[in-house]
């Protein structure tokens, strides 16, 4: 595998050395020229040695990252995700108005069958309560990101814990844990999430996050357990055991890091489903009851549905936002899977 990056840097100094050496010969005395030439040769050798030494090695992650950058779909996904994250972080700066404030200019035109549309001050128009729709959309991204990331992280943590224990111990521990995850996998994700939210005495943002997290636990657990079991049979784990490495280090240093790649990729893909699931719960009215909180699923479910005939944009914008963001995470996840999967390596 020749490195395309080092080639040009190797090529350029040679030309400059040659041309300057020729000039040297032309103008100066011969012995001095030869001396300088030798010096330059040595310098160039050092330079070349430096170039190969600097190249060093690339770690698995950096190698995967390089392949990721060459994949156009991954780039599209990453761009969408980056844009989304930036919007979420800088929402208060980007939003032209306060998302909870009701504007007189909007409320005075508000009737049952007419909601003010786009104007120069309010590019997306009004929502049914006379608030700036664009600002609410921008602030909604924060909520979506927060819920999606947190739900995925909690699900990931619990899933990794269960999967690692099951895969490391095997036997009856594995059996019990896997039967529990089987039960969870047997229920459709959304149905399970709805039941979990319904069990809470009062629904809030946190019940949504927890419900979505728990729904994703069995997927992570299963995935990690599978690759942990495969790792257990691998030669390097046998080699580590032959060196008398302790059980704990074998699990944590030799099995887990090698088994994690699939799980990390799954986490990116899960981000998109978590966002969709959280939006679905809000859409169904099981989310945060606070009407001042801007949330895409809620906007789509309550306002979008109720006023679809009056102003369909109220449904279109949140729906498009959810779809695009979920697509972004999916593309990025797929790209990562291809980049990390050693079988797709060329």
């Amino acid at each position: 595998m020749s490195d395309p990056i080092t080639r040009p840097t190797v090529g350029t100094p040679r030309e400059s050395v040659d041309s300057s050496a020729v000039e040297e010969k032309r103008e100066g005395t011969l012995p001095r020229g030869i001396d300088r030439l030798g010096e330059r040769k040595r310098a160039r050798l050092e330079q070349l040695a430096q170039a190969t030494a600097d190249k060093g090695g690339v770690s698995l992650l950096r190698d995967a990252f390089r392949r990721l950058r060459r994949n156009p779909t991954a780039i599209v996904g990453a761009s969408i995700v980056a844009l989304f994250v930036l919007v979420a972080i800088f929402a208060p700066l980007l939003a032209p108005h306060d998302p909870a404030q009701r504007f007189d200019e909007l409320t005075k035109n508000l009737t049952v069958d007419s909601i003010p549309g786009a104007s120069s001050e309010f590019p997306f128009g009004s929502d049914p309560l006379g608030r700036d729709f664009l600002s609410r959309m921008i602030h909604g991204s924060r909520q979506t990101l927060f819920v999606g990331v947190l739900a995925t992280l909690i699900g990931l943590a619990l899933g990794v814990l269960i999967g690692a224990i099951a895969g490391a111990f095997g036997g009856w521990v594995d059996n019990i844990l896997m039967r529990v995850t089987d039960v969870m996998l047997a229920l459709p994700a959304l149905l399970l999430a709805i039941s979990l939210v319904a069990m809470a005495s009062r629904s809030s943002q946190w019940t949504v996050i927890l419900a979505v997290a728990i729904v994703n636990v069995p997927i992570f657990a299963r995935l990690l357990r599978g690759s942990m079991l495969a790792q257990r049979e691998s030669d390097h784990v046998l080699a580590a055991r032959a060196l008398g490495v302790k059980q704990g280090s074998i699990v944590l240093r030799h099995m887990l890091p090698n088994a994690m790649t699939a799980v990390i990729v799954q986490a990116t893909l899960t981000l998109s489903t978590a966002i969709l699931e959280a939006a679905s719960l809000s859409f169904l009215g099981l989310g945060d009851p606070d009407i001042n909180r801007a949330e895409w699923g809620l906007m789509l479910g309550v306002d979008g549905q109720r006023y679809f005939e009056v102003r369909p944009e109220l449904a279109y914008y949140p729906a498009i936002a959810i779809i695009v963001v979920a697509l972004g995470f999916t593309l990025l996840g797929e790209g990562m899977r291809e980049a990390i999967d050693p079988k797709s390596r060329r």
Partner: protein
Amino acid sequence: MSLLDVRDLSVVFQRRGERPFTAVDKVSFSVEPGQTVGLVGESGCGKSVTSLAIMGLLPRRGNKVTGEVNFDGADLLKLRPDDMRDRRGRDIGMIFQDPLSSLNPVVPIGVQVAEVLERHRGMDRKVAMKEARELLDAVGIPDPMRRLKEYPHQISGGMRQRALIAIALACKPRLLIADEPTTALDVTIQAQILTLLKQLVDETGTALIMITHDLGVVAGLCDTVNVLYGGKVVERAERHELFARPRHPYTHGLLNSVPRLDSPRGERLHAIRGSVADNIPWVEGCAFAPRCDNVVDACLEGTPPLEPTATGGDLRCNNPVSEEVAVP
């Protein structure tokens, strides 16, 4: 006293609902300090299982290991798992066949060498890394400082095997088991690795069990050779004796099937008839009988005993190759 004394080691694989399979059948051999002993045989003859059984690395379930493995006055098969773990890597090192898959792909080489030093010699990371550098230097890895930080996939196959040897020898074990250490390497690298092993064994006085199917490796390295067939030792002899006068028809066939530089051009290479699959259970007779050119009636009436030979070896054969028809 022998460093390692294996007595009647048997490994029976027993899975529920299946006929038990005897992979290693009452194998006995011993290794003196500083000696190099070869275990030779074709695929499936029980070489690797023997080494895994000695190391206590066979899976806990699905097999039965019987016999004795006396190492340094203790029966390794009776040790508690914790005690055995303390000995592995410290007293007995092991080198595996495939250097790429035997190294952890996500951990830099240096850390992998340091790990065993930290584990058995109680060094902290800094000291261990320094020692690791010296070890890599000792096994002939150029620029060890840089290699310490590199990952297994970034270095060549030969270098990986050198790194594995460095890891196996890190705690100066008294016994090293090398399970086909050169199979995954090309011939020039094979020669380098074998030279290195020989040199390290001579320098450190480590005893070596060399497991191989390659008679060339045996010829260059081993003091005594045990030839295994179907899980049993069929012939044991001192190296020169074995190569000069192979007595068992199997050994004879193996030596004959090695291509020689001085054989006439165009001559077909001698082959042993059939394959390992064509054997009969040892209880019925000699497992090699169906493939043997010297088969006699006695070969099908129970296991031939392993009997001492005049030249100090052991032989399990009813009708050995006479000394006159030895390999030219």
